[in-house]
């Protein structure tokens, strides 16, 4: 199974820019399916980013975050070749994680 997480982390001098895309329906709970039944809410609640064992960013999301959510931020302290670990958990208790090298 391919990972649900895509990440691009690039070091520019002191700062590392991180962009990620996660494959997730992010169902709001307000949309109906073809039979007219409400699709229950299903969304990522927490995404955390760790570099060298330290949390560098935490996202708390609700159902208003778009399908296949995107995120961009930057942090200081990462170097080329360092490992960035990303993990998410959703409201149904599902989760995924990935480790990526900073470019």
């Amino acid at each position: 199974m391919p990972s649900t997480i895509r990440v691009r982390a690039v070091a520019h001098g002191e700062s590392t820019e991180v962009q990620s895309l996660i494959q997730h329906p992010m169902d709001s709970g307000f949309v109906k399916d073809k039979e007219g039944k409400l699709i229950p809410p299903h969304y990522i609640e927490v995404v955390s980013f760790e570099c060298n064992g330290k949390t560098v960013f935490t996202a708390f999301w609700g159902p208003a975050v778009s399908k296949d959510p995107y995120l961009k931020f930057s942090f200081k302290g990462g170097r080329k070749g360092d490992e960035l670990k990303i993990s998410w958990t959703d409201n149904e208790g599902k989760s995924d994680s990935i480790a990526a090298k900073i470019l």
Partner: protein
Amino acid sequence: MIGRIGSIYRAAAAAALLFTSLLPAASAGPRIDPAGDQRAFQAYFERAFPGVALDDFANGPYAVNKEMRKQWEEIMQFPPYDFALDDGKRLFEAPFKNGKSYADCFPDRGIGIRQSYPYFDLRSGEVVTLDLAINRCREQNGEKPLPYEVGDMAAIDAYMASTSRGKPFDIRIPDDPRALAAYENGKKFFYERRGQLNFSCASCHVQAAGRRMRGDILAPALGMLASFPIYRSDWGSMGTVDRRFVSCNEQVRSLPLKPEDEAYRDLEYFLSYMSNGVAIAGPGTRP
């Protein structure tokens, strides 16, 4: 039924053409002149959107509206079709049960060939789109055809388009009455008003191109297919050219045809030929 009628129309057009070629002086309907049509078509859009480079027309509404372009540039920092692109590469490279693969069915092993589709197959006398060729490849190798509009087909398309980025559309119309008739049939489908709302493809994508229709900016028809398949936010998923044709027909309250219906293939042939010279930019994103 529709396909058969399309054939009848085309047979008639082919006969008319044959008739005119036998009797050059006779005026048996307007001459079919794809090259002349293409020049006029491209000139129309160049006049309508001065300053938009030919290749940029592949980007549809983003080429002609600054506000939309800025949002698009943000979305393209990490485009939502990335997942489909990876799926498509995996599917394209996976061997069939008989050990062969898609690469064995296509020229240049399927890499960098998107710009040449659809083409007119002189042996079978019909327009062959990339999606039709993908399914024929599957069937020749004992695999079931894929559904046309979404899913794996869109993913394989996405991968094949991505290997062809930057290559200009290079659609050929052979000097054959059947090919010219297919072209003319596609052109007719494009300009004919249909559906309860009485719109043609051209009503929106030629006459009203670049204008706002409800929340959307209507894409110019020139270059429109160069960025397919597309991830549409409105769909929340990928879609092929067929999906777009079907949804366009539905929107004007016309009963859509079946994907890969002869009329849709002819339409794709016409539209792609009109865009010759526009570089492939697929997969793309749209609102």
